[in-house]
Each structure stands twice: as C-alpha cells, then as structure tokens.
C-alpha cells in the first residue's frame, strides 16, 4: 500500500477537483448564440436589431435594405458569437425603440429590441 500511496494522492487530486467542480458548479455550460442577445431590461441604451447573418456580405444586404427605407444609422457589427448583427444603436429608451420597431414593421422589416452590451 505504501508503494502506491503517492500515486493514489496524484490520482485523487486529478479526479477530485473535476468531481468537486461538477458537484458544486454543475455541468459545464456551453454558451449558445442566444447568449449574445441581451434582453431589453434594466438601465442603459438599447438597439433595434434588424437581424443576424452568418457573413458580412449577407449582413450588408439587409443593412442596405434598412437604409433604403429610411432607417439611417443602420450598421453592421460582429456580435461576439460568430454572427454579424445589423442594428441601429444608441436608442435612448425602450419607448423610442418600440416606436422604431412599429415603423419598421410597416415596411416588411421585423426587428427586435435588445439592450446594448
């Protein structure tokens, strides 16, 4: 037994730490793309998001569509989750954001309101 005791210590530590983490912190989380979408709650500025696309080329199409119907300030940016966001930023309040969304729906766009990160 004495011969194997040091190896037992190494094995216990190697297995013990992950087991303790799993027991107290639960299974590992794998953030999804939805984690980059912040719900429009709380303080701060908002953004009206016309959509997400996988490539900048596709995103530019939607941006141009929004600009063509008058939504000045529509820009594209990486969302941090592998997609490109098409949005109007710096919306000062939730009410203003909802007004912009109502207008957009009249021209066949379907934006959503998000909190700026």
């Amino acid at each position, binding site marked *: 037994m004495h*011969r194997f005791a*040091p*190896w037992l*210590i190494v094995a216990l*530590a190697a297995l013990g*730490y992950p087991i303790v983490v799993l027991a107290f912190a639960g299974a590992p989380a794998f953030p999804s793309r939805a984690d980059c979408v912040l719900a429009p709650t709380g303080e701060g500025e908002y953004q009206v998001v016309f959509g997400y696309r996988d490539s900048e080329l596709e995103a530019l199409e939607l941006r141009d569509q929004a600009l063509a119907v008058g939504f000045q300030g529509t820009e594209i940016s990486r969302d941090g989750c*592998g997609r490109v966001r098409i949005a109007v930023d710096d919306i000062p309040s939730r009410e203003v954001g909802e007004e912009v969304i109502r207008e957009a729906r009249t021209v066949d766009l379907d934006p959503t309101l998000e909190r700026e990160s």
Partner: protein
Amino acid sequence: MTVRSLLGLAALNLFAVGVGAGLLWGLRGWRSWWELARLAGLAYMLGVAGLGVVLSLLLVAGVPFSLATIVLTGLALAAAGIVVGFRLRRARPSLGSAPRRIGLVGAGLAALVIVYLEALFRAARLSGLYAFDAWSFWVPKAKAIYFFGGLDEQFFSELPNATYPPLVPTLEATAFHFMGSADVVTLHVQFWFFLAGFVAAVAGLLATRVPAVLLWSFALLALVSPRVVGRTLEPQADFTLDYLFALAALLVALWLIERQPWQLASATLFLGATMLTKREGQLLAACVIAAGLAASWREWRSAWPRLVLASACAIALALPWRAWYVSHDLTGEFPASGATGFLDNLDRAWPSLQSVLSSAFDAGLWTVVLPLVIAAIALAFIAGARVLPLFATLVYALALAGFTWGIWSFTELEVPIEQDEAINPVVRLTAGLIVLSAALAPLLLDAAWRGTDRPRRPEAG
C-alpha cells in the same frame, strides 16, 4: 465554444502525440510502454514541433493547406520515424516495470500541478480574444491560412509584423481545421495543451534524473508566476516560443552530460521550431548553441562538429521562411539601423540593460524564479559541478545580453521601457528564461546535492 470544437482539439492533440511517438521511436526508441507513457509529453511536443515546422515549410512551398494536408503530413512524419526506428533496430517495447516511487511530498506537489492545470483548462475553455497582438495579427494570420488555404502575400503585408515566422499561425489554422470552424474562443484550449505538453515533457525527461520534490516544486513555482497565470493561454506565439526554447536548451544540457544522440537530434527539431515561431527565436537558438559550444570546450573535437551540424540543420529548417518574405519584399525582421547600428546610439546601452534586468527580476511578474536559479547555479559550481552550471550561466547571460542588444538596436523603442506588462516587449522576452528555469533549476540543484553533474543513470540510446 462548442463540444465539437473541444473534441476536434482533443483529436488534434492526440494526433500530435501519435506523430511525436513515431518521431521519438525513430530518434530514441523506448524499451517499455511505461517508458513511452513517461515520455508522452516529450512525444507530444516533438509532434507539435514536427507538424509546425513541416506545415510551415509546405505553406512556404505553396502547398494548399487543408485537413488532408495536415493529416498526410502527420502520417508521413510518424511513418518516417517508424522506418528509421526499424532501420536502427529499435527493440520492441515490453510492458516493463511499474514507474518508480515519487514520495509523498513529490506526489503532493505533482497533484498541485495537475489541479492547477485542470483549473486553467476551465479558464481556457471560455476565454475571449482580448490579447492585443493575438487579435491584431496572430489570429488574423491563422484565419487567412485557414480560409485562403495558404500564405496570402497581400493580406500578410497589410498586417503588423508581417515577417514574424508562421509556425504559430500554422498551428492555429490546424486547430481551426480540426475544430471545424475559426472558433477563436476554444482556440485558447490549444494553448492550454501546449502548456500541459511542456510540463509533461519536462517531467518525463527529468523524472528519472532528479528527485520528484525538486522537479515538481520548480514546475509549480514557474507555473504560479503571475505573468504565466495571466498570459499563458493567449493565442499568440510568446509562450509557445518559450516552451520550444526551454525544451531545446534542456535537451542540449542533457546531451552535454549524457551524450545520447537522440537528445541532440530532438533539440535540433526544437531549435528549428523556435526559429520558426518568433524572430527572437533566432537569438535564443544562438544562445543555446553558443552556450553548448562553450560548455563542451574540453571535448571540442567530438562535441563541436555535432553542435555545428545541429545548428546548421535547425537553420536549414528556418531559412525557407526567410527566403519567402524577402522574395515578397516584406521587411521589419531586423533593426532598421542594422546589426551594428546600436554603436551609433551608445546612450541607449544602460537604459536598455536596465529595462531587461528590471523585467527579468520583477517579483510581481515572476516571483523569485530567477534569484533561485542564480542560487542553484552558484551552489552547483560550489559543489563541484562544471558543465551544467557553465551552460546555464551562459544561456541566461547571453540571452540577457541579446535582449539588451535588441532593445538597444530597435531605436523606435523609447528607453527605459516602463510600459504596462501587457504591452511591454521586454517582459515577453524574459518569459523564456523563467520557463527555462522550470527545466534547468532541478538539474542544477540535483548536481549541487550530488556534487557532480555526471548522470545519475545514463539513459539508453
């Protein structure tokens, strides 16, 4: 940040172990499967270095970079090692005897290192791409290789530091292929594998040579240095360079006292990889070779031709990249004032040295690693050892002198350098000496304890 990316990286790194095991079989062979398990970290790092070097050369040669290229390259490397092994009549491995005892204290320290690495893995899994150089040019270069299937001259020339060698971007692009996407978050896990591989390689090489307490206490001391904790997972070349340099230096040190050909052959591959990782890799490789030459001066007839051949082979591995960027009119590798331009700026000498020394001995970055190494060198000299402490002294001294020359020569750098450690170039340079200390300090202290640096039990070739 997906399970698929993690499984892809696991597959890539297992593949690297397989490639390196083939290379190790050719270079050294192993007598038992236990011995292979002990040297698995070295095999992994040989695989990483071998894949990195050959894939870089293939990129320079214009071979399209794809998953098939990576797999075929790895298989060819492993097959070459196996063929050489058979030609050299390496013995077929048996199960062998169980690993030696490591003692309770040694086991406790090893357990701490393992838990540390496990905790670092959790941090690596969801790390964002925030390191400046990483998102500025290292990862963009990797993405260019991944998406365009080669070295895009126009894109590379638009990026900062276009002439920086391609080994790390090549390995990052390899990781993208195995992950199935350019997942820059999970990419940090690849750098966790490099760190774990380095620790395992040093442990495997030293386990039969020094007491476990010395081995694991220095590994732990280097690992918990604040700079290592904070920066080692960043997907840029700094720490990868340090691992390759430290392994090259450790293998040359072992070769100086044991003279096993596989040690110098493995060191040659690591030196070549070092030079293909960052431009200061050339300086570090030169320090290792110069220190090796000086430390073997008593046996210069037998040692020097081998060391010269090793350095020539390492340079040959690194030359094609230099030829590529020169032929594509990319510049910036050397000081604008030339190799001797520092003589025109003598007033920069002292502040440059001051910057290097203050960074190397900054306890806030590296705790007490370098003072302990100096003590270990002194104790080894006092106890009667000669080759190891002389080699270590020269590697550290030449590297510090080389860093000083670098800071002195690049006149666009304002001296003394007092930038934040996140962007301080000297801090990046001196990290190599700290990583090296994890490998050399246990050997030096063991030599001091035994009063000699003759091998405890020579390794079989």
